[in-house]
C-alpha cells in the first residue's frame, strides 16, 4: 500500500476520554440515562444551550445540577417565578455611597453555567432578557454592554404538562436552545436503583468535578476541528430545508437550526471517538435539534399529527449520501 493515512486521532481521544469521565460522573446521580447525558454534553461541547423538558419528578433539575457540578465552573441558579424581573437576572447599577458612584452588581446570568429552573414560569418580559445573553454572550444594562464569561451555557428546565401560571416560550427564545432533551420515566429496575442510590444520602452532594472551564474550552475547540464531509453537510442542510417546505409545518427550521445541527453533529462524533461526522450523527440529532423549533399548522394539529412524526417523514424522504451508482 503506497499511502496510508495516519489519522490525527489524539485530539478526538482526548474528547472521548473526557466525555466518558463526564458521562460516568453524571450517571452517579442520573440513573441509566446515558443517551440524554451524552446529548447534554454534545450541546455543551458546541457551546449550545439545553432545554430539558419533561414532567415533574423525572430529574430535570437534578440532571442540570449534576452537569453543572461535574463541570466545576461558576454556577448560578435562577428560579423562574411570575414576579421575576429582568434586572433580577441581568444585575443592576446601584449607588455606592463610599465611592459616590454607580456600580454594577452582576445578576445570576453572569456565570459559566446558568440553570434557569422552570423557565416557562417567568413572564415573557423576563424570558426575553435571556435572549441577548444566550445568542451574543453579552448583556446590556443601562446602556452598558457587559460580556459574559466564556464558556457560557444555559440549562433550562420546563414542565410541558402544567400550563396554569406559565408563559410558553416564544419562538425566538426556543430557537436559541440548541437541543431539547427529555428524560422519560425510568424502567422498573431503574426506579429501584434510584431508590437504592438515594437511600442513604443524595449522591449529588458528593459529586466532584471532572472537567474545568479551561478544559471545556479546549474540548470545544477540538470539537470544531472534526471533519464534516461536503455531502454530509449538504444532508444536514437538506433536512433543515425540507422542514420549510413541508405542508404540515407552519414555521420551519431556521439557518441557526442548521448551524446547530452541524455543530452538534461535530460534538457527537467527537464524543463517540470519531474525527469525522457521519449521516447517522445528523439523523440522530435531527429530532433533538429541530423538534422545539418547528410549529405545526393548525390543520395538522387538529389531525393530531406530532412534530416527531412529521420529522420522521422528512428524514425518510431525504436521501442519505451513499454510493448512488451501483
Amino acid at each position, binding site marked *: *500500500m*503506497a*499511502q*496510508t*493515512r495516519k*489519522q*490525527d486521532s489524539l485530539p478526538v481521544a482526548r474528547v472521548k476520554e473526557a466525555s466518558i469521565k463526564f458521562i460516568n460522573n453524571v450517571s452517579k446521580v442520573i440513573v441509566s440515562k446515558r443517551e440524554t447525558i451524552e446529548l447534554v454534553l454534545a450541546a455543551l461541547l458546541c457551546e449550545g444551550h439545553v432545554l430539558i423538558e419533561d414532567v415533574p419528578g423525572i430529574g430535570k433539575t437534578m440532571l442540570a445540577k449534576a452537569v453543572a457540578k461535574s463541570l466545576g465552573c461558576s454556577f448560578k441558579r435562577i428560579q423562574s417565578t411570575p414576579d421575576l424581573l429582568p434586572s433580577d437576572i441581568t444585575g443592576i447599577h446601584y449607588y455606592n455611597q463610599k465611592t459616590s458612584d454607580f*456600580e*454594577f452588581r*452582576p445578576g445570576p446570568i453572569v456565570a459559566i453555567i446558568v440553570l434557569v429552573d422552570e423557565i416557562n414560569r417567568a413572564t415573557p418580559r423576563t424570558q426575553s432578557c435571556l435572549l441577548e445573553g444566550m445568542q451574543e454572550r453579552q448583556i446590556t444594562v443601562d446602556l452598558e454592554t457587559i460580556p459574559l464569561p466564556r464558556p457560557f451555557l444555559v440549562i433550562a428546565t420546563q414542565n410541558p404538562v402544567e400550563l396554569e401560571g406559565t408563559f410558553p416560550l416564544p419562538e425566538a427564545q426556543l430557537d436559541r436552545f440548541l437541543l431539547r432533551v427529555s428524560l422519560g420515566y425510568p424502567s422498573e429496575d431503574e426506579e429501584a436503583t434510584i431508590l437504592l442510590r438515594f437511600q442513604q444520602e443524595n449522591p449529588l452532594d458528593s459529586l466532584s468535578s471532572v472537567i474545568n472551564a479551561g478544559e471545556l474550552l479546549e474540548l470545544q475547540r477540538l470539537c470544531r*476541528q472534526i*471533519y464534516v*464531509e461536503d*455531502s*454530509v453537510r449538504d444532508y444536514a442542510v437538506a433536512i433543515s430545508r425540507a422542514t420549510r417546505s413541508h405542508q404540515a409545518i407552519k414555521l420551519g427550521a431556521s439557518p441557526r437550526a442548521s448551524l446547530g445541527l452541524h455543530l452538534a453533529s461535530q460534538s457527537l462524533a467527537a464524543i463517540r471517538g*470519531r*474525527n*469525522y*461526522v*457521519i*449521516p*447517522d450523527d445528523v*439523523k440522530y440529532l435531527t429530532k433533538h435539534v429541530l423538534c422545539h423549533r418547528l410549529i405545526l399548522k393548525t390543520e395538522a394539529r387538529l389531525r393530531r399529527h406530532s412534530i416527531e412524526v412529521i420529522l420522521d417523514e422528512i*428524514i*425518510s*424522504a*431525504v*436521501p*442519505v449520501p*451513499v*454510493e448512488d*451508482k*451501483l
Partner: protein
Amino acid sequence: MRISGYQTILYGAVAGIEICWLYVVIDTLNKKVAWGMLSVFGLLLIYPLSFGFSFLLKRRRWYRGVIYSLSWILWLAVMLFSIKSQLYADFRLLDFDWLLALSRAIAEIIYIFRPEILILIVSAVLWWLGQRLASLELDFGTLVSEFQFGLIILVATYLVAKELGVALTHSVYVTMFFFVFSLLGLSISYALEGISWLSGLYRGHWSGPLLISIGLILALGLLISAVVTPDLLQLLLTAIKWLWGFILKGINFLISLLPEPSLPSGGALPSEPMPTPPPEPDWPKLFNMPDSVRNSLRISWSVMAIGFLIFALWRISSDIFSWLRHKLASRADAEFEPLSGAFAADVLNLVKRLVKWLLGLRLRQRARKGFSLPEVHSVRRIYRQLLRWARDAGYPRLPSQTPHEYCHNLVSLLPEANADLELITHQYVGMRYGFSLPTEDELHHLTLSWYRVRQNNLKKKKPR
C-alpha cells in the same frame, strides 16, 4: 413638560446649527431664484415660531391628528403672511390680487420657478424642522448627527454657490457660528451623558472652562490670521521644498544600495542604441566607497529595516494589549493580573495555529486526492458490490438509510455474517465520510470478508 437649563442650551445649539446651514441654503436660493429680493432673516423667523408653537401643542394632551392639523393650518397662515409681507407689501390684506398671483405662480410652476414657490417650499421645510426640533430627544448622538448633516449641507451649498457664481453674504460669520453652536451642543451633551471631564469634579462649573476654551480657540485663530502672511507662507513653501529635495536624495542613495539585476550568463541580447545618459548629479561623488563597504552597509541597512519593523509591530501590539488590560482593570469587580510573557505566548500560539492550519489544509488536499487512490477505489467497489448483491436478493437499500442502518438490516437477515458486514460498512463509512484510508492488511481482510458474505444466499433468509 419642564426642561432643564442644559436642555434649553441644547435646543438652542441644535436650532443654531440648523439655522446656520438653512441661512446659507436659503441665501443661495434667494439670490438665484428670487434675485435677492427676499429677506432671509424674515423667512428664518418661521423656524422658531414653528418650534414654539409645536412645543406648546405638545403640552396639550390632544390627539396627534388634531395637533398636526392645527400646526399645518398655522403654517398656511404664516406662509401666506410671508408671501404677502415679502412680495406684496403694497397690497392691502383683503385685496385678493396677491392671492390670485400666488395661485398663478403655483399653476406655472412647471414653466417658471417664482419667488412665491420658493417661500412656499422654504416655509414648509422650516415649519417641519421646527416641529421636528420640538419632538427631538437631545443627546450626544443627535448632536453629532446634526453637526455631520449640517456640515455636509454647508460645504455642498458653498460648492454649489461657487459653481453658480452666487456671492454669499456673511459666509464667514455663519460658518463660525455653525462651529460654535456645534461645539457647544456636542460638549454639553457629551458631559450630560456622564462620559467626560465635565461629569466629574468640574460638573458644577462647566461653563467657565468651556467659554475659556472657546475664547482661546477664537483668539488663537485671530492670532494665526494676523501672523500668517503670504510672505511667510512662501518662505515655508521654500523650506518644505528644500527638505523634500534632501529626503529624495537620501532615498536615491538608499535605492542605489540595493543589488542591481544581473543579466543571465548566456545569450546576451543584441545591443540597442542606448540613449545618452543624463549627467550624473554631484551628490553620488560624495558617497563613493569600495564594494565591500557598500555590501556591509547593504546588509546592515536590511537588518536595521527588519529590526525596526519588528520593533514597531511589537510596540504597537504591546500598547494595544496594555490598553486592553487597563480597560479591563477599570471595570467593576474585575481583577487586574499582569501576565508577564503573555504577549510572546500569544505570538507563539498564533504561529503554531498557522502552521497547524497549513498542515491541515495540505492533509485535506491529499485526502481529496485520495478519492482517486486504488485503496479508495477498492473499498467503494466492494461496498457497491455488496449493495448490488443485496438489491438483487430483494433487499435494496432505501435512499434514506445510512450505511450503518442498512448494515443493521442485513445483519438481521444474516446474523452469521455480522462481523464481515460490519467490517465492510465500517471501512466504507470511514473512507466515504472521513477520508480514512485502509492499510494493506485491512484491505486484504475486507476482500476476504466480502468473499465470505457473498457465499451466503440472502434470498432464502427471512428477517428475524
